[in-house]
Structure formats: C-alpha cells, structure tokens
C-alpha cells in the first residue's frame, strides 16, 4: 500500500508548512494567507493518497499553494474584467498559457519553468522548492526553455 519514498503526511506537513505559509504571506498578503494555508494543505491531503512517489514534494506543495492563490483571485474578481488587466499584475494568464506548453518537459525543468515564468518566483525560491539551489534552478529553467524552443522549431 505504501509507495516508495512517500512520507507519512504528518512528516510532509511538518517539513513544509512553515515555508508554505511564508510563501502565501509573501504572495497573497497576511490577511489572505491563513485561509489559503488551510486550503493548500487540504488539497494536498486530498491528492496525497494518489501520489506515485515522494520526489519534489516541496515543488509540488508550492505549486498547489500558487494554484490556491490563483483560484482565490479568480473567485474574488469577476472574469469579465480580466482582459483589461495589465499583463504581469495578475499571474493567471501567464500560467494558463504556459502550463499546457510545458507538459512534455522533464518534471524538474517543467517545475522550474512554471514557477519562474508562470508564478514569477525567484530562482532561490525555486531552488528551495526543488530541494536544490539557486544555480540548479536557473539551469533547469533555462534547459526547459531551450527544450521548448527546440520543440517549437521542429513543429
């Protein structure tokens, strides 16, 4: 029943809850962060039983947190206003355009590209999320972008 390398949820929660809360506070403000914190870990709990392996759990939970922010923003703002918003202020369009394009990338490169260009995380944050460092995150993101360019050219 237990798949390889998946820690009991308690240990996963203890390992990442500080960082997730700090991330949410930075990205969504202290007032919203509390609700988003609970939402993030409830979503993670729901999906946890279906995980195939225990790799990149930090990147995984930070992606869930980022999605929770996007969904909350979507609930708060009527969709019709969206096109008028300046690019970059709202992270949704970037993510929605980017995510499908990166489906075929290796997991680490995909995570780096989406977190960098979709969610505008700094490389040190991405490095932390991937369990490596800033330089490795930078390399993974640029390798991902190179691979995307190559795929685009070959189409």
């Amino acid at each position, binding site marked *: *029943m*237990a798949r390889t390398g*998946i820690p009991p949820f308690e240990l996963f929660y203890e390992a990442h809850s500080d960082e997730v*809360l700090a991330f949410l506070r930075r990205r969504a403000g202290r007032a919203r962060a509390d609700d988003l914190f609970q939402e993030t870990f409830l979503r993670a*709990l*729901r999906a946890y*039983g279906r*995980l195939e392996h225990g790799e990149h759990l930090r990147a995984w939970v930070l992606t869930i947190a980022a999605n929770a922010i996007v969904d909350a923003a979507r609930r708060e703002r009527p969709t019709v206003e969206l096109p008028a918003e300046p690019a970059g202020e709202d992270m949704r369009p970037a993510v929605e355009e980017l995510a499908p394009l990166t489906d075929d990338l290796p997991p680490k490169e995909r995570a780096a590209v989406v977190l960098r260009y979709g969610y505008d995380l700094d490389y040190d944050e991405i490095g932390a999320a991937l369990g490596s460092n800033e330089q490795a995150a930078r390399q993974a993101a640029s390798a991902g972008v190179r691979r995307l360019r190559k795929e685009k050219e070959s189409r």
Partner: protein
Amino acid sequence: MTGVPTVLDERFRAAAAASGDLDVAYDLLDDTPVGPLLVGVSDRGLCRVGFDPEPEAELERLARSFGPRVLRTPRALDRVRLELDEYFAGRRHAFDLELDLRATPEFHRRVLEELTRVEYGHTTTYGALALQVGAPRAARAVGTVMNRNPLPIVLPCHRVVGANGSLTGYGGGLDRKEWLLRLEGAIL
C-alpha cells in the same frame, strides 16, 4: 515547524479530520499512568495503541499498513482518550470502541478475538488461549500474538500469564503489565 501559529495549525488539523481524507488520525497521550501512548484511528476504528512511541517509526508503520495520509488530529481521538481515562481511573471495565484489525494476520486476529472474552480482573494462560482457538500446541505462537498486539490495553493481552502464574512477558514491559493487573484487581 516553528512559524505556523498554533491556532492556524489546529484549525487545519481539525479541518483535515473532518474532511474524511485521512487514512489514520492519531494523537500522543503524554501523561497516562502507564507513560506516553500513541493512539490512532482509521475510518473503521481504533487501529493502534503504542507504548513509548518513537513517533517517526510509528508513523512510517501506520503509513505502510493503512496508507500515507497519517496526521496528528487530537479531536478525532476524543472518544478513545475519554475511554482510556475512565479505564485508568478504574471507572471503565470494558471498551466500547470499533476496532480496525485489517493489518493483522488472520491467526493473530482469531487469537485476539478469543482474548476479548477474558474479562476485567481475570487472567488466562497462553496454553488455555491456544486451546480455545483450536491450536493446543501453539502456546508459544500465542505469546508472539500477544507480543505483537497492535491494541494493547484495549485488547487485554496483559491478562495472559504463564501456566505457573508468573507474568512471563509484556510488549510494553513487565512493570506495565503488573500495574494494569493491579488496577484491575487481578493481583494484589
């Protein structure tokens, strides 16, 4: 974990328990008369009572047996805590809890089931229990079942003693076995 305010942490744990998405909800009872206990419940019932818990090892075992969604959620254990408190205070002689023994091998389950017939304040022997499950030569195997009992206290393996009346052994240590039997008035 240092930066998450207690109120936020507790709110999440309560919401997780209410979500129905947990494989095992557990808690650590730090101040029982027999020392610290780890208790766990699944959606089917009580699935773990552990003496002197080393939490990480216990959680890994629970995850292997029941699934990885194992979380400390004190509220989900309210009923278990209450019944144990009553038992330790001498006010409860039988537990009224659903039990989840799905991770326990079939022979062990049979023996443990037979064990539940041994009432508060009474004892039996390994040999008698072996006889009752139809395996008269399996006294030693019955000892192993007692030693691996996932729900000590609630499934009263402390009530099983040697043929000569000696306490013999106990997964939680002989001191605890003696304390429990004294509590129940089985020894003076």
